[in-house]
């Protein structure tokens, strides 16, 4: 019997020739990532369990990326960064991306690929549920808690239950010009539900995958957790290889699902038939097409986060926003400092993206998670009242972006930008057709 990509990685890292869904195995960890929210308690448990003088199992494999509550006056939040700083110094960690330093990056899930930590065939754990983003690179990547992270810090290992794999096949050879990966994943989550992939892997493949950029693929795998998935994975190809090789010299060995691998289920989607999608409040699976919701009044638009704050997301938003005044407050937050630089260097019709956003009246934030998950009350873009927001972020449960009286619609950067221009939920095809023709 063949194995899926995920099964192969777990077998290889547990020293077994094969593994089967349902069995528990102990795997060797290639990379452990933590950030400012879950890093301090993980460090505390590590010290408590292994001793005050204990050293991490492999300092080259521990990556610490503060990103959640960075630009706030909250003294407790700032203390968290101080704890990371002291730990990185004490353990002499080479991969600490300190706030206020040259190396500061921003959102961990985008920083990891940028810095070459998302390598095909490897095992990555992170103390954040969206760690599954790295599956876009053919890596086994999943989110864990503080106790599990502390266990890895001391041992380099963790137990994993081998998940069943659900396969999602994309047909078609190009993405329609109005379609983004966010539309595709919102459609899939809407189809299978927020617990439709619980304890399972979501594997994305088929001919349509090859036309998707690494950023598109990251949007798909980022949101598998919103369907309950343990990890998401895309088989590596030449695009994967090129992206990773550009960013690391480390060796890696890509693995691929066997043709006779056994799947829990298989789904087919035709890219050419897909349309802009929205998740209504208060759940990522509360799906509707953008057309169905046209005219829904909004107070705010938000473009940012690990799933919607990449350079390709801002290029898309700028295509629509350029030359328009915005009807509602619109927040733009690049995921990382590299993307923030890209906003200045990347141009549309000869104009830097950042100028397009500024001229339209957008409020531009520093690279970080910002208001994606609420945070302290002074967080940039946070919803503090009954605002209705359309957002490129990945989660819209009650109170996610701040006040539990607020309401969040999730959509692609195209749809969010189109809605920012009109002040109401708007299908972006109205604007895309203008641009294309």
């Amino acid at each position: 019997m063949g194995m899926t990509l995920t099964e192969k990685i777990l077998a290889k890292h547990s020293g077994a020739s094969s593994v089967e869904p349902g069995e528990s195995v102990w795997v060797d960890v290639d990379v452990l990532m933590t950030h400012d929210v879950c890093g301090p308690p993980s460090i505390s448990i590590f010290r408590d369990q292994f001793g005050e003088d204990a050293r991490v199992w492999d300092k080259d494999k521990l990556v610490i990326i503060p990103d959640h509550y960075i630009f706030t006056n909250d003294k407790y939040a700032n203390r968290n960064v101080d704890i990371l700083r002291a730990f990185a110094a004490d353990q002499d960690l080479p991969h600490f991306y300190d706030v206020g330093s040259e190396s500061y990056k921003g959102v961990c899930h985008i920083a990891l690929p940028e810095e070459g930590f998302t390598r095909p065939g490897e095992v990555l754990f992170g103390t954040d549920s969206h760690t599954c983003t790295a599956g876009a690179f053919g890596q086994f990547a999943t989110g864990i808690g503080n106790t599990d992270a502390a266990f890895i810090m001391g041992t380099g290992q963790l137990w994993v239950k081998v998940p069943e794999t659900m396969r999602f096949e994309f047909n078609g050879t190009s993405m329609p010009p109005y379609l983004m990966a966010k539309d595709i994943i919102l459609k899939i989550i809407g189809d299978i539900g927020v617990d439709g992939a619980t304890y399972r892997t979501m594997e994305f493949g088929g001919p349509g995958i090859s036309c998707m950029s690494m950023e598109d693929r990251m949007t798909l795998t980022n949101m598998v957790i919103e369907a309950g998935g343990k990890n998401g994975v895309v088989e590596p190809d030449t695009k994967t290889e090129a992206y990773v090789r550009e960013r690391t010299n480390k060796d890696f060995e890509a693995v691929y699902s066997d043709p006779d691998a056994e799947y829990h289920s298989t789904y087919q989607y035709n890219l050419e038939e897909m349309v802009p999608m929205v998740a209504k409040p208060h759940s990522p699976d509360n799906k509707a097409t953008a057309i169905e919701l046209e005219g829904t009044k909004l107070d705010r638009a938000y473009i940012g986060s690990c799933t919607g704050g990449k350079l390709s997301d801002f290029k898309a938003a700028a295509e629509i926003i350029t030359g328009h005044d915005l009807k509602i407050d619109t927040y733009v937050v690049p995921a990382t400092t590299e993307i923030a630089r890209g906003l200045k260097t990347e141009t549309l019709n000869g104009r830097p993206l950042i100028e397009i956003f500024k001229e339209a009246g957008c409020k531009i934030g520093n690279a970080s998670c910002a208001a994606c998950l609420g945070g302290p009350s002074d967080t940039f873009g946070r919803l503090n009242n009954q605002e209705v927001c359309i957002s490129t972020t990945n989660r819209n449960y009650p109170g996610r972006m701040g006040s539990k009286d607020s309401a969040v619609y999730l959509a692609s950067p195209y749809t969010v930008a189109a809605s920012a221009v009109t002040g109401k939920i708007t299908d972006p095809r109205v604007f895309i057709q203008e641009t294309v023709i």
Partner: protein
Amino acid sequence: MSKQKITGKAFVLGRNIDTDQIIPAEHLVYSLDDPEERKFYGRYALSGVPDEQSGLPKGNIPLVEEDAFESDFNIIVGGPNFGCGSSREHAPASLDIAGVEAIIAPTFARIFYRNSVDGGFVIPYESLENLSQEVETGDKLEIDPERQTVTNTTQNKSYNIRPLGSVADIVNAGGIFEFARKEGMIDVKN
């Protein structure tokens, strides 16, 4: 641990209770080590649940009364997909700090379930039926892990729960570190 009966008062919630509702992100800044700060995780446990959905079927019942740090309710009964969302271990920890001992739900989100078990915070019991539509907040429950039943002594009804399966050893040990130490897998202090 898993062999002992748990008795107490039920607090009932609906489906898809996510980790932001269990402990909103703005409260994740307190230190879990400092006994004074730690108490705030108890105070704000389940504070993100919309009021009308907090303490079903009536609603508008907080798990923890205003200005209190612990709850009178020690068993949560939830709908499907309990604990979805973020990987924050502060979520099961906050329920533990508030005095919750067990959660009964038909299904749990993977990371929350794992964090509950590996950190030794609360015991997640999977029920065969969706008891959130049967039990009322304030009902007295008795969980019997050996018989794999939960009895509602207020309504005089009994239901089945699933065995803990492969995680029972970790639950019984009190967490992943205690388990690993017992198994001789790691050489750690204590």
